């Protein structure tokens, strides 16, 4: 959870402000001091922090606390407003040339930011949208960079163009463009060599490429963990290569991701996508407004909904609906368990989902110990060792059958017993919950209750 720790910090700060009718200068000063520290710890650039706290302070001092808000919430609201103003509120899209004209996208960035991986992820993403991308390997320096792009391109099913050995990147770019035009590709993604921003020769290479082919979108790939330096990186690339937008990578780490704020603030360029994981499908649309609310601990529910929707095909959606209704009635069986495990994997695992839910993030460290994908797969093995009849009706499980299952799944009989018992308890709990809350069938969250509850099945201490 990128901004989690920051949200928590702000929460702590504002607790002290509760219970007052008007914000005095000293209140605001105390809060701003903490906000400043929190933002700096989150790697937001110093200049940006200064500017930010100044504008929040100006608005906050003397402002009447609105009806229904306590002073803390009032400050949070102002911080949120200003944060949203800074990050922008609309998500930006890459613009494409109409029809079969080839849109050229150039990826650039520092070494190790993740350009090659992101290029492949972007190709996969665009293919989902019906584009026909061609990847071009312009990193002729790093050992095996071309190979890496080829392998990743193959994985996502996108064609990769590699120049003849010894070719200059600008030449490969023009050749790739000609190839794209001839072979009915409508997007060309150029994967350039990583560089140190101070390296003149390499920066020149970027402008040479831009001279050789007409680039529609120059995208800067930035590691979300970048420190104070993020501002200089963005500024220099913007000056020398003229960037049109940003892709933020490694946002699935625990970095607070202040770099996002810094880059947006100093360049004004939109952040198009965020890299969220190891899989080549893990590239997500970047929503600045959601990012801002994430800072304030509202969780990223919207992203979760998006994720659930895009990963769930129509067929499994029906299944999900059925499951949700059975869960409500407490008739949740082992088949449902398997199905929800499958869905979870598709969506990037338990932790990735829980991390996106508000309020969950705070306990991320507790969850860490409990939800262990390995243990989950152990319980999966238990279920897979059951007969179809047993899966559909947990009541069938006699000691003999359990013994067989234990042997079949390579577990101890005690493990099986524990798992079945927990399953039983969970079933009862779900029945109660189902009675209390009306499940909204069809909404992705209908099923989520079940999936979320299942987390504890991963807990048995084997």
């Amino acid at each position: 959870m990128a901004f989690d720790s920051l949200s928590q910090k702000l929460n702590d700060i504002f607790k002290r402000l509760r219970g007052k009718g008007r914000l005095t200068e000293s209140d605001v000063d105390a809060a701003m001091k903490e906000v400043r520290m929190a933002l700096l710890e989150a790697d937001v650039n110093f200049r940006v922090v200064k500017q930010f706290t100044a504008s929040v302070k100006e608005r906050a001092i003397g402002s009447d606390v609105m009806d229904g808000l306590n002073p803390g919430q009032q400050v949070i609201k102002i911080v949120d407003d200003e944060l949203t103003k800074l990050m922008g509120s609309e998500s930006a899209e890459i613009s494409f040339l109409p029809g079969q004209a080839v849109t050229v996208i150039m990826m650039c960035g520092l070494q190790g930011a993740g350009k090659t991986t992101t290029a492949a992820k972007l190709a996969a993403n665009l293919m989902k949208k019906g584009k026909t991308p061609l990847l071009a390997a312009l990193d002729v320096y790093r050992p095996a960079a071309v190979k890496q792009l080829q392998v990743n391109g193959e994985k996502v099913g996108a064609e990769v163009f590699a120049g003849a050995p010894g070719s200059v990147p600008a030449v490969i770019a023009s050749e790739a463009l000609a190839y794209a035009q001839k072979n009915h590709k409508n997007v060309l993604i150029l994967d350039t060599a990583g560089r140190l921003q101070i390296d003149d020769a390499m920066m020149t290479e970027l402008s040479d490429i831009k001279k050789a082919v007409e680039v529609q979108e120059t995208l800067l790939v930035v590691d979300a963990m970048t420190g104070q330096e993020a501002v200089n990186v963005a500024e220099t690339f913007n000056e020398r290569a003229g960037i049109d937008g940003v892709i933020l990578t490694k946002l699935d780490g625990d970095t607070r991701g202040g770099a996002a704020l810094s880059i947006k603030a100093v360049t004004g360029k939109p952040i198009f996508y965020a890299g969220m994981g190891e899989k080549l499908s893990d590239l997500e649309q970047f929503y600045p407004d959601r990012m801002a609310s994430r800072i304030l601990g509202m969780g990223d529910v919207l992203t979760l909904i998006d994720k659930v929707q895009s990963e769930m095909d129509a067929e499994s959606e029906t299944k999900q609906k059925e499951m949700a209704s059975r869960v409500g009635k407490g008739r949740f069986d082992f088949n449902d368990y398997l199905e929800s495990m499958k869905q979870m994997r598709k969506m990037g695992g338990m932790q990735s989902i829980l991390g996106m839910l508000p309020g969950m993030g705070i306990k991320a460290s507790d969850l860490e110990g409990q939800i262990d994908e390995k243990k989950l797969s152990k319980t999966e093995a238990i279920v897979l060792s059951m007969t179809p009849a047993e899966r559909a009706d947990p009541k069938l499980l006699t000691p003999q059958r359990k013994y067989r299952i234990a042997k079949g799944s390579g577990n101890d009989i005690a493990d099986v017993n524990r798992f079945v018992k927990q399953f039983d308890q969970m079933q009862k709990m779900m029945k109660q919950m189902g009675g209390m809350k009306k499940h909204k069938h069809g909404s992705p969250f209908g099923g989520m209750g079940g999936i979320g509850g299942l987390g504890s099945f991963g807990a048995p201490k084997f």
Partner: protein
Amino acid sequence: MKEEMNRETDGELNEDRPKKKGFFARLRDSLSRTRANLAGAFTRYDRIDEDFWEELEETMILGDIGVQATDRLMTQLRGEVKERHITEPAQCRELLISDIREKMTVDGHAYDFENGPSVVLVIGVNGVGKTTSIGKLAGSYRARGKKVLIAAADTFRAAAGEQLAEWAARAGVDMIGGAEGSDPGSVLFDALQAARSRGTDILLCDTAGRLHNKKNLMEELHKLDRIIGREYPEAMRENLVVLDGTTGQNALSQAREFNEVTDLTGIILTKMDGTAKGGIAIAVQSELGIPVKFIGIGEKMEDLQRFRPDEYVDALFDRPADTDNTEQNEEGADGQAQSEER
């Protein structure tokens, strides 16, 4: 004593390199921005007042030293200034330099593992330069006549094996690898057996980059660590985490988490050749007590060097201790982008 140590280190990693000063000069270059800022704080003021403290704090934070490490240094510095009745910014600066240097000093036995037989496990998040650092280490040990073997246990990233193979070829050392997607543990196992039977001095193990908050991947690392202990218990152990010099405060969290699953013995700080300010090294050392052992400053084989706190701090604060302003051969022309990227 100090001289003796210097001579010793000179004789090791750098002996095949006539351009020792060049390294220092470039480290200074790369730290120049922090230095300029810090110098600004020291020279712009003629007395020590609150403005002075505030600006000093800001510049340290801008250098990625981190809020907490900065706080600690500032508190210590304020105490000393008060105690010794210091009024000159220049004296204050000397104090800060010696405080930081003291924190950054590397233990005398830190490099014992280089005599072998030893197993060096190199870990870190994605894209920090693990593969490249291993290539550079292999080259320098090979040049010193050590028998080096590389284990390519990054079986996850596309073409990671090929990248490392190229480095191994350049360094002239053997490499043991596996197919993409194969079990890193089995690659490591094979490499350990080979290192043992061949009488290898140093076995360098590359691993797949992993974000430190991915439980299952960290678990895998823990397993690799155990395999080494089990299969080659008599070897000296070295677990090095690679940190990117441009990373901000998250580097602390990285070091902390990796230290949880494998007992870290040191840090390789890479990409100090950009405009990275490198303050994070101070933060990591002071908050976790894990020493920075190597520093990567360029893209060539010899651009990974032992970390020298004296040079680092001197460069950070621009002390004219070394007269090394002699210009070096231009390096820019063949600057190849060889850093690991994912």
